[in-house]
């Protein structure tokens, strides 16, 4: 394929896909190890009421109100889950189920009740986004990468996702040691003076930020997949957290690239003219990677003491 076609049509979606995948997979490693993997699921559902309320308040679909609305909905949901869990003395999974389904239902209802026909805001878009549409119209080939006029026309999602990824990487690197210790042995972490509760909350908030930023570009389903599948597959490959994080990044990039290419070009190779959903394909590929890891990963079984038969 020539650069004149690839650069404007595929380069930016591909890059955004990779950024999203890595930004979600990094905190996902800790969420999976802490058995909070479904937080990502909950957050990506409650983003919908957030953006609908932001739309109703501001009356347009500008980026910042949407992001702020989504982020506040995510924080609100985390608080509400905790509140329901404490007040009602309910197990966390059920508390989560009560809160996120209700908030999602409220979002759908608000959406149906309000006049959103003039703007591009619907449930399907929230679920599986539109990665393919984030094209770079000003580019004409590889030479555009050094052309300032063309560079100015890059989709804003690219910069936003890059910034989010940087933030997530920074958080992971800066808090690596406390995160690692508190994930594996919370009691020990507390005795050496790590504030585990704020740290856990910070992890959830960083995940929420990654989810919200990614959601705008690619929809929520890919967010859930990237939070869980690459880290879970990486978990089956190694016993060391450092290696696990590297594996998960590799798997995330692999899912994004292979998924995007398959969705854009796979049908063409098979003789069809149209493409399939890139977000769905990336999620599917990450699932295939997890399948391979579950069958052949060197550390797929539980280690340590022998398990009871079952």
């Amino acid at each position, binding site marked *: 394929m020539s650069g004149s076609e690839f650069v404007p049509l595929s380069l930016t979606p591909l890059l955004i896909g990779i950024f999203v995948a890595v930004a979600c997979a990094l905190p996902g490693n800790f969420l*999976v190890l802490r*058995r*909070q*993997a*479904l937080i*990502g*699921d909950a957050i990506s559902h409650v983003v919908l009421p957030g953006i609908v309320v932001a739309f109703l308040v501001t009356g347009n679909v500008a980026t910042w109100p949407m992001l702020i609305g989504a982020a506040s909905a995510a924080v609100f949901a985390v608080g509400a889950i905790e509140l*329901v869990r404490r*007040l*009602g*003395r*309910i*197990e966390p*999974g*059920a*508390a989560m*189920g*009560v809160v996120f*389904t*209700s908030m*999602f*239902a409220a979002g*759908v*209802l608000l959406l*149906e*009740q309000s006049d959103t026909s003039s703007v591009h805001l619907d*449930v*399907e878009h929230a*679920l*599986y986004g539109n990665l393919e549409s984030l094209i770079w119209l000003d580019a004409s080939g590889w030479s555009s990468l050094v052309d300032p006029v063309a560079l100015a026309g890059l989709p804003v999602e690219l910069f936003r996702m890059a910034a989010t990824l940087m933030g997530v990487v920074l958080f992971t690197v800066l808090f690596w040691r406390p995160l690692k210790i508190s994930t594996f042995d919370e009691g020990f972490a507390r005795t050496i003076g790590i504030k585990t509760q704020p740290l856990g909350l910070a992890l959830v908030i960083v995940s929420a930020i990654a989810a919200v930023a990614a959601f705008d570009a690619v929809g929520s*389903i*890919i967010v*859930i*997949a990237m*939070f*869980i*599948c690459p880290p*879970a597959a990486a*978990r*089956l490959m190694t016993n060391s957290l450092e290696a696990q994080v590297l594996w998960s990044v590799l798997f995330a990039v692999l899912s994004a690239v292979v998924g995007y290419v398959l969705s854009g070009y796979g*049908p063409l190779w098979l003789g069809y003219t*149209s*493409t*399939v*959903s890139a*977000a*769905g*394909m*990336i*999620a*599917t590929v*990450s*699932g295939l990677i*997890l399948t391979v890891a*579950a069958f052949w990963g060197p550390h*797929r*079984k*539980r*280690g340590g003491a022998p398990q009871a038969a*079952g």
Partner: protein
Amino acid sequence: MILDALLLQLGYNATLVTIGATLLGMAAGVGGTFLFLRKRALVSDAISHATLPGVGLAFMVMVLLGGDGRNLLGLLAGAALTAGIGLLIVHWLTTRTRLAEDAAIGAVLSVFFGFGIVLLTVIQSLNVGQQAGLEGFLLGSTAGMLRADAVIVAVSAGLTLVLVVLLRRPLTLASFDPEYAAATGQNVERTDLAMMGLVLAVTVVGLKIVGLILIVALLIIPPVTARFWTDRTDVVVLASGAFGGGAAYIGAAISAGVPDMPTGPIIVLAGFTLFVVSLLLAPQRGVLAAYLSHRRFQRRVHLRQGLLALAQGQPIYEKLTLRLLRRAGWARKDGVATDEGRARAGKALLDETRWQLVRRDPSFEAAAALYDGLLPIERVLTADQIVEIDKRIPAPQGVPT
């Protein structure tokens, strides 16, 4: 209009859908209770999302065979198939690999859903011109439902409810005490499988009414709501069925009677309203009840401490204590005890002194464990024991006058 809908006066289809939704809500409430008691509520989320590729595949197969792609029975069969596969994968990942159940659930739900989206876009590009209904499975759509489909939904919801009722005894036992169930010879693994089968049936039947994203709410919210009202399993099961049925009935009726009210979200929000009311108002486990009992306890502690202070002639500075003593008529405004107050104070001091002696004596260990600073000692010891304790009180006994 809403009243018409609630009284099932809105025509044959709407009535069928409302009845079907109510039956489904009851089945979901009862079936969800067992999931909730086994702390596996979110497994249903994986099952429901895993139905999407089945719907897509069934549609494609039916179109390829030259049939009508929208045949509801065929679509539901496909949904049940992939949901079953998803369920088995969750089970397999949890037991055969080191992954925890939440990671397995998240992996299955996102991957199956993603693949389902891929299939939906493939179907769109097939240009067979009848795919319009498939998106309805995401959020449910009862508007303009065909009569045959409404009958299918109502009948299968009824069948699911019958199934739940038949299976309730073994399910109750296994979800409440799996070890005991196994010891009495019950095959707990098979019961678990039956429970998951039930959840699967509820999910698949609910696809058309509530949609696959929100069906999990119907399985989780009613049991959580019912749990506030009682500690007995059988009552939780019944109440949960009632809450689920009620929410579904109200939701379906409102949605049929008022324009722009999608069925699934309304049902979920009706259930959530019941949940919030229960969270706040339920006796014993509700927030209001907990607050009131906290206040009652606080008052007793303040009164007791106030009486002890009166008995020992100490001044009381705590405003709440003074107010409570005055309201009980045991002290005057300036903190001086009334006659009744003096009597009660003496009694409290004697009680406290006896308790101190009891707590010092190892032979009263069992009784001493009950000490909380409020319990009168007469409730714990017999009269004889109290007489014995009283002998040890260092009072001026036997002093010659």
